[in-house]
C-alpha cells in the first residue's frame, strides 16, 4: 500500500504557480492509494465506482451521487504477483495491474466496477473480477458495435437504463432526470475546459507541455468533475502567465494510448526529443464525447445520441459511417501536424491492429510515422528516445 498523499481539499485554490499545481496533479494522477477517493468517501459518505476505460457514461454514475473513478492501472508501481495466477503474462498491463491493485487491497474503496465491452480482455476481466470480489457489483456494459443501425439506439438506451437501475438499487435513491441533466452540464463544461487546454497546447506547445496537461487531465480521474472544472479553470489562468522559451519542435499526433497508459517518463522523453504532441488519445476515458452532448430534452437520450454519433474514434468503438483513417487525417490537417506517432500498449490487440491500417493511411497521405510499443512498467526509454530523435530530425531536416 502506498502512503496516503494528503492533499488539502481544493488544493488548486492554494497553488500560486503553474508548477505547484502541476506537481499536485502529478501526485494525484500517480497515486495508486487513491487517497483523494478515500477522502471523498469520508467526506460525503457516498459510493465510489471504478470505471474501466473507455466509454463508461460517467455522467450517469455521478448523477446517482456516486464518484466515478477512471481506473488506469497501477502506473507502473506494482509488481504483478497475485494477478499472475489469474491473468497470464501475454495480456496487456492494465488488465493485470488493475487486478493486482484490487488483490492487494488498493481498491478496497471500490463499491462497484463498470466494465465496458471494449475488447476480449475487458470482457473476460469482468468475469474474473466477479469470482474474486463477489462483494462489489460488476456491471458489464455492452457498447453497441453497429452504431448506424436503428436497433442500436433502443438497445443502448436499455443498457443505460439497466445501469441506472443498478445504481439506484445500490444507493437506495432514484436517479432523477434533473440530476442527470445537471451532471451532463458539469461534464460538458469539463470537456469544454479540457478542449480549451488542448487548444492552447496546440497553439503553443512549449507553453503547455504534454506531461503537464496530462496530469491536469489525470486529476479528473479521481475528483468529482465539478471540482475538476475549478481546477482546470485555475490551470488555464496560471498557464497563461508562464514565460517559456521557444525551441525547434515538430508537431505530431499520438495515437494508441486510449486505454492503457504509457509511463509519464515516456511522454517526457518524447517532448525532450522535440516532439510537440498537439493531439493525442491519452486517458481518453474521460473525454470520449468529441463535443458537448445535448443539454435539453431527455438526458438518457442525450447520452445515447452522444455515444452513437459523437464519440472520439478509437480502435475499440464502431466508427459507423465515419472512417478512422479519414478522421485521423482531418485531425492532422486541422492541427497542422507534421508526423504521427503510433504508441501501442504491448499486447493490446485493438491498438496493434489499427496501427497497421492507420500507419498505412498516414504514410499514403505523406505523413511520416513513428511506431513503438510500451508497457506500464517500462523503465528504460533510451530506445524510444533514439527513435524519436531520428524521427524529429528527419522531419526537421528532410521534409
Amino acid at each position, binding site marked *: 500500500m502506498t502512503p496516503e498523499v494528503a492533499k488539502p481539499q481544493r488544493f488548486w485554490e492554494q497553488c500560486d504557480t503553474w508548477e505547484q499545481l502541476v506537481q499536485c496533479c502529478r501526485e494525484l494522477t500517480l497515486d495508486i492509494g487513491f487517497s483523494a477517493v478515500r477522502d471523498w468517501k469520508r467526506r460525503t459518505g457516498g459510493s465510489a465506482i471504478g470505471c474501466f476505460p473507455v466509454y463508461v457514461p460517467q455522467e450517469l454514475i455521478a448523477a446517482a451521487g456516486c464518484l466515478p473513478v477512471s481506473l488506469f492501472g497501477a502506473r507502473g508501481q506494482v509488481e504483478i504477483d497475485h494477478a*499472475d*495466477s*489469474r*491473468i*497470464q503474462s*501475454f*495480456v496487456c498491463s492494465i*488488465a493485470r495491474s488493475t487486478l493486482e491493485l484490487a488483490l492487494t487491497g488498493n481498491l478496497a474503496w471500490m463499491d462497484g466496477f463498470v466494465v465496458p*465491452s*471494449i*475488447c*476480449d*480482455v475487458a*470482457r*473476460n*476481466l*469482468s*468475469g*474474473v473480477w*466477479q*469470482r*474474486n470480489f463477489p462483494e462489489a457489483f460488476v456491471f*458489464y456494459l*455492452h457498447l*453497441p*458495435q*453497429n452504431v448506424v*443501425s*436503428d*436497433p*442500436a439506439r*433502443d*438497445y443502448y438506451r*436499455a443498457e443505460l437504463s439497466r445501469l441506472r437501475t443498478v445504481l439506484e438499487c445500490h444507493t437506495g435513491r432514484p436517479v432523477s432526470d434533473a440530476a442527470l441533466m445537471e451532471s451532463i452540464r458539469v461534464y460538458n463544461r469539463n470537456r469544454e475546459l479540457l478542449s480549451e487546454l488542448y487548444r492552447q497546447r496546440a497553439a503553443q506547445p512549449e507553453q503547455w507541455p504534454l506531461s503537464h496537461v496530462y496530469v491536469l487531465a489525470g486529476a479528473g480521474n479521481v475528483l468529482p468533475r465539478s471540482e475538476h472544472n475549478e481546477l482546470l479553470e485555475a490551470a488555464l489562468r496560471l498557464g497563461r502567465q508562464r514565460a517559456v522559451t521557444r525551441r525547434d519542435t515538430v508537431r505530431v499526433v499520438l495515437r494508441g494510448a486510449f486505454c492503457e497508459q504509457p509511463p509519464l517518463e515516456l511522454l517526457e522523453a518524447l517532448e525532450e526529443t522535440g516532439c510537440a504532441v498537439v493531439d493525442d488519445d491519452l486517458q481518453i476515458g474521460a473525454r470520449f464525447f468529441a463535443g458537448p452532448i445535448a443539454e435539453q430534452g431527455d438526458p438518457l437520450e442525450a447520452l445515447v445520441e452522444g455515444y452513437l454519433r459523437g464519440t472520439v474514434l478509437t*480502435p*475499440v468503438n*464502431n466508427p459507423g459511417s465515419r472512417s478512422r483513417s479519414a478522421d485521423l487525417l482531418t485531425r492532422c490537417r486541422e492541427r497542422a501536424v507534421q508526423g504521427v506517432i503510433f504508441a*501501442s500498449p*504491448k*499486447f493490446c*490487440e*485493438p491498438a*496493434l*491492429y*489499427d*496501427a*497497421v*491500417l492507420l*500507419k*498505412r493511411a498516414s504514410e499514403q497521405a505523406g505523413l511520416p510515422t513513428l*511506431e513503438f*510499443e510500451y508497457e506500464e512498467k517500462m523503465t528504460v526509454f533510451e530506445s524510444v528516445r533514439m527513435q524519436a530523435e531520428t524521427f524529429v530530425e528527419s522531419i526537421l531536416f528532410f521534409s
Partner: protein
Amino acid sequence: MAASYRYQGIGRDLQKELLGQWYRRLENAPQNGTPVAYLFISGNICELLRTFGFELVFPEVNALQCGIKKVAGNFILKAEDLGYSSDVCGYVKNDIGLATSGNRGPFGTMPRPDLLVCNYAGCNTYIKWFEALAEHFGARLFLLDVPYRRTGEIVRQEDLDYVVAQLVQLAGVCAEITGNRFDRDRLSKALEYSRAAEDLWVRILASARNRPSPFDAFFEAVFFMAPIYVLRGTPECVEYYQAAWKEIEERMEHGIGPVSEERFRVVIEGPPPWPHFRAFWELFKRWGVCCVASTYSKVGGIWDFGLRHDPARPLESLAEYAINCYTNWDWTLRRRMMERYVADYSADALVIHSVKSCRAFSVGQADVREHFTKALDTPTLFLESDLADPRYFAEAQMRNRIDAFFEALEHRRKGSVEA
C-alpha cells in the same frame, strides 16, 4: 481400429469429403456468378445467408486448415512483414497473409467476398479482422452485434430482440446484394435440418459418458464438429451426423474407443495447437487419456443443454443460438459449464490449453485453474502454446508437464485405493 468394422473411420472420411466439395464450390463461385459472403464460426447465421444463395467462406476454418497443413507459419510471417505485431492473434495474421497472397491456400483459391458479415459473438478480434479485410477487398461489411451472455440471467428478451432486429436488416442487405427476396419458408426448412443435425451431434457428444468413452470429445470432436459449423442447415449435414452416429454406435457395441485402454478421463478447456495437433494428441494417448467433454467443441454453438434451432421461430432461434456460443458466455457461465462436465462425464481432471492468440479464451483461464484447484480440488493441468502460430509449441516441455501430471494423478489414484 480393425478393418472388419463397418462404419469405423466414416466420421473422419465423410467430413473430409464434404469439406472438399464445399471448397470446390467456393473455387467455382466466381465463374458461376455465385455471391460469396465471409463470416465467423461463433454464432454464425449461415442458414440465413444460404437462404439468399450465398456460398460461405469461414476464414477461421481456412486458418485452421493452414495450421494443420503446416503452412500457417509463412502466412503469419507475411502479415508480420506488413506490420502486424508478433503479439496479435495468429488466425488473423494467417488470413491477412493468405489474402495478400492471392487468397490461395492448400484448399484452393478463395473467392473475393461480396459481403463480409462480422457476426460479433464471443470475440472482439473478429471486428478488427473484418475491418482489415473490408479495407483489403474494398468489400461491404455488416456488423451483427451479438451481446455477451451475462451471468445469472436467462437470455434476456431485449438481447434477443436486438439481434433479431439486426437480422432483419441483414436480410435487407443480402437481398440488395443477391437480388433474391427473403424466403422465410426456405429458412425454416434449413433450420429443420439444423435441428436434426444438432440432435444427432448432441447424441454423439453424450456418448462420451460411457466407460470407456467411444469418442474423444476434443481430439476427434474437432473434426466431427466441422459439418455442423460450416454446413449446418443442409441435408448433407444431417446425413453426415447419421453416418457419424453409426460409427459411434458401432464403437459402443464393441466397447472400443479412441484409446486402446482408457485410463484417464479429462475435460479439456481451450483450443488445440493446430500446427502440432498430432504430436499434442500423442502426448495424451501415451497415458490412455480420453477427453470426455470439451469447451472448444462448443465455440460454434452450445446444444448439449437443450438449445436448438427452431423452424417455428426462425429469426429468434438464430439470435438465441448466436448469443449462446462458448466464448460469448461470461466466465461464471463458462466455469459452471466446466464444473458440470467434470461431474456429468465422471472426469478425473481438467486440462486447460491456454493459447496466446486467443484472448477471448485465454484471459482468465489462470483464474479458472485457481477455481478448480483451490475451490473445488479438481486436479488441473495448465498448458500453454498457440492455436495458429507454430513457434509457440515447446514439445519437450509440454511432454514433461503432461507426464508429471498424469504420474501424479496415477499416484493419487493408487493412494486413494490403498487408503
